[in-house]
C-alpha cells in the first residue's frame, strides 16, 4: 500500500503559483491564445444554451422570443413524455455502464495474462474504438435486420429486433456495451499493469488463492481507476446520441428515446428551441447530481 501511496504525494507537491504583479499578467497573456477558443467555442455556447432554457425560443423567422422564467422547467416536470424518456435514459446509462464495466474487467484480466498472441488480441479488442458511432450503428442495423441479418439466420428466429416494443431497448443496450468496451478495457488494463507485483508475491507467500488475490489486492488497487472510468462512462452513456439515432431513431413508439434524442426532436423536429435547451440543462443537473453523490461516496469510503 505504501508503494502506491507514494506517488500522489510526489505529484501533489506543486510549486506555489505566484499570483499578482507582473508575472500574473504575463501568465494571463500567455494563456490568452488557449483561452479564447475555449471561451468562444465552449463557454459561449454553454451560457447561450442556459440562457435559451429560460426563454420560449422557437424556430422560425416570425417567432418573437421572450423571457419566460422557470415555466419551461415547470412544463418539463409535468411532461409525461420527458419522464418516460428520462426513465429509458437511466435504464440505458446504468445498465450499459455496469455491464460494460463487468465485461471490460473480464476482458482486461484476460488480456493481462501471459497469453500467446497477447499483442494481437489486445489490438483486436480495440477495433470498436476505431469506428465512428454512425458506422457502428449501421453495422449493427444489418446484424439485427429481420430478414437479412446474421443474428436471425444464426439463431433461426424471425425477430424484428429493433422494432419489437420489448426487445428494442435491450438490443440497443447490447450495442452500447460493445461500443464502449475498448475504452474501459484499456483503462482497466493500464490500471492492472500498475498494480505492484510485490503485493501479489506477498499474499502468495501467505497462501492466498486466485479469488482472494483478486478480491483483496486487484480490486482495492484498481479502485481509483474503476471510479474514474465508471463515472466517465456514465456521463458518456447518458449523453449518447449518434448510435441510437442511427439504430432506431428513438423508435418503436419511443421505446428507445433517450433524453438526448428527445431534446433533438424537440429542437429540430418540432422547433421548440427553448424547451430543448431546458432539457439539456436538466440533464446536466442530473448528471452532476448523480456523479456528485457517487464520487462523494467513493471518496468517503476510500479515505
Amino acid at each position, binding site marked *: 500500500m505504501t508503494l502506491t501511496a507514494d506517488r500522489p504525494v510526489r505529484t501533489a507537491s506543486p510549486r506555489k503559483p505566484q499570483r499578482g504583479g507582473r508575472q500574473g499578467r504575463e501568465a494571463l497573456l500567455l494563456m490568452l491564445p488557449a483561452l479564447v477558443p475555449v471561451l468562444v467555442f465552449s463557454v459561449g455556447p454553454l451560457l447561450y444554451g442556459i440562457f435559451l432554457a429560460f426563454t420560449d425560443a422557437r424556430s422560425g423567422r416570425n417567432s418573437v422570443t421572450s423571457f419566460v422564467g422557470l415555466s419551461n422547467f415547470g412544463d418539463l416536470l409535468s411532461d409525461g413524455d420527458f419522464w418516460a424518456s428520462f426513465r429509458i435514459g437511466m435504464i440505458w446509462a446504468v445498465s450499459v455502464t455496469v455491464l460494460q464495466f463487468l465485461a471490460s474487467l473480464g476482458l482486461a484480466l484476460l488480456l493481462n495474462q501471459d497469453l500467446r498472441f497477447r499483442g494481437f488480441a489486445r489490438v483486436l479488442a480495440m477495433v470498436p474504438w476505431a469506428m465512428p458511432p454512425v458506422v457502428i450503428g449501421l453495422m449493427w442495423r444489418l446484424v439485427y435486420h429481420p430478414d437479412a441479418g446474421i443474428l436471425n439466420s444464426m439463431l433461426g428466429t424471425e425477430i424484428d429486433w429493433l422494432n419489437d416494443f420489448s426487445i428494442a431497448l435491450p438490443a440497443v443496450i447490447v450495442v452500447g456495451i460493445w461500443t464502449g468496451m475498448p475504452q474501459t478495457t484499456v483503462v482497466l488494463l493500464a490500471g492492472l499493469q500498475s498494480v505492484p507485483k510485490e503485493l501479489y508475491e506477498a499474499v502468495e507467500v501467505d497462501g492466498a488463492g486466485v479469488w482472494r488475490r483478486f478480491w483483496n489486492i486487484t480490486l482495492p488497487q484498481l479502485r481509483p481507476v474503476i471510479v474514474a472510468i465508471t463515472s466517465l462512462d456514465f456521463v458518456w452513456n447518458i449523453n449518447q446520441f449518434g448510435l441510437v439515432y442511427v439504430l432506431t431513431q428513438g423508435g418503436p413508439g*419511443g421505446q428507445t428515446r433517450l433524453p438526448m434524442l428527445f431534446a433533438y426532436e424537440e429542437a429540430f423536429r418540432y422547433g*421548440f428551441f427553448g424547451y430543448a435547451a431546458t432539457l439539456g440543462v436538466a440533464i446536466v443537473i442530473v448528471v452532476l447530481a448523480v456523479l456528485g453523490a457517487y464520487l462523494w461516496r467513493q471518496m468517503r469510503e476510500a479515505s
Partner: protein
Amino acid sequence: MRMRVVLAAGLLVLAAGCGSESPAAAPDEPVTIKFQSLAWQKESIAANKQLVEEWNKANPKIQVEYIQGSWDNVNDQLVTSFEAGDPPDVIHDDSPALSGFASRGYLLDIKDKIPAELKGDIPQPAWDTVTFGDGKGGQGVYGVPFLQESQVIIGNKKLLAAAGVRIPTPDSPWTWDEFAEISKKLTKGDAYGVAWPMKSPVNKVLNLALNFGGTFFQTDAGGKTTVKVGAEEREVLQRIHDQLHKDRSADPSALGMGSADPLPGFYAGKYAMLPAGVYLRQQVVEQAPDGFEWITLPPLKGVGSEQGAVSQTLSVAADSKYPEQSLKFISFFLNGSNQVKLAKGDWLLPTSVKAAGDPAMTVEENGWNVATASAKNLVVAPFLKVNGFDEWKSKVATPALQQYFANKITLDETAKKLVDEGNKVLERYNR
C-alpha cells in the same frame, strides 16, 4: 508602424467580409441556384438529373446545381439550414412539411408569382394541398405540387381468378363490405386474404378514413383545432381491426412491416391482396418472380371514395437570393411533359392535367390506367392544415394505432388516447 500593419490587415479582413456578403448584382452575370431533390428511385434520379442537364444547356445564365437529399432526415436538415440562413433555393419536399415551414416564415409565398400556364395546368384541389397560413394571419401558396400518391390495392391475379371474385373497375369499385367478404374468401389454409403493413399506420389510416368522412380533426369558430374520433373516424379503424382479429383474413404478422416488406410474402402467395400506395407497383414490376401475375385494383368505396392527398412539392426558400430564377426553373421542371417523366420515374400520379392525359399515364400496362383514374378521388387531407400534426403523429397516434391493431387496447381506449393526449400536444401549438 506595427499598429498600422495590424489596422490595415483588419481593414482587409473587413473588406473581404463585406465583399462576400453582397450578391452578384450585375444582371448579366450568370447565377447558380441550388436545387435539392429527394428523388431516391433509380429511374427517378435519372429523370431529375436529365431535366436539370437539359435546363442548364438551354439557360447558360441560370445554372442549376443538383443536390441530393434524403427523405429520412430532410426536415431536420432543412430546419438547420433555414436557421443558418443558407438553404437550397429550390426545395423538394412534401406538403405536410410545408405547413410548419410556411408558418415559420422559411418559405417564399409564390401566390402571385406562379406563371399562368403552370397555374392553369394544375387543378385547384392540388393547389389546396400547398396553401397554408403564413403564421401572421394571412394565407399563401408555398410550393408547386407535382406528384401525388393514392392508395390502391395490389392483387394476385391468379388467386383472385381462382376464387372467382368480381374484378372491380374505377367506375364500380369494391365497397369495404365487399372487400371484407372477398378477403375472407381468399383466406385458405396458410394463406391470408390481405396484409396490412402498419409500421407507420397514421397517414394510411387518416387518408383512408375519408372514405367514410372521417377527418380526425375539427377547427372551432375561434380557429382552435382539436382531435375528433367519432363514428366516422372509427369505421376504417374498426374494419381493419375486424379483418385482423375477427375475420382473421388479414395476416397479423404483417402488422410490424413497412410498406414494401410484405412483398416477398405476396409473391409467394401468402397474401392475395396488398393495400399500398401506387408507387409500390414499381417494386412489384422489378422484383416479382417470372410468371407472377398481378393487378392494380382501384381504391375502396365507403360512403364515398375520397382519399386524403398529400403532394410532393417544389418550393422556393424565403432566403433565396434568386427567387425569380428559381421560379423560372420550377415552371420548366414541372411543365406537363416533364411531369410525365417525373411521374413515371417515381411511379406516382402527376398533378398536371396535361400530364395525366398523356398516353403513358393511361395505358393498362402495370396498372397505370387504374392508378391515374384514382387521382380523381384525391382531396386535400384535413390533417395537412393542422399545426403540430407531426408531433401528434409520432408521439400519440403512431403508438396508439400500433397498440390498437395489435389488439392490446380497445377502440374506445384508442379514441381516448388520440383525443386526450392529442389535444395536449396541439395545445402547445395553439399558444
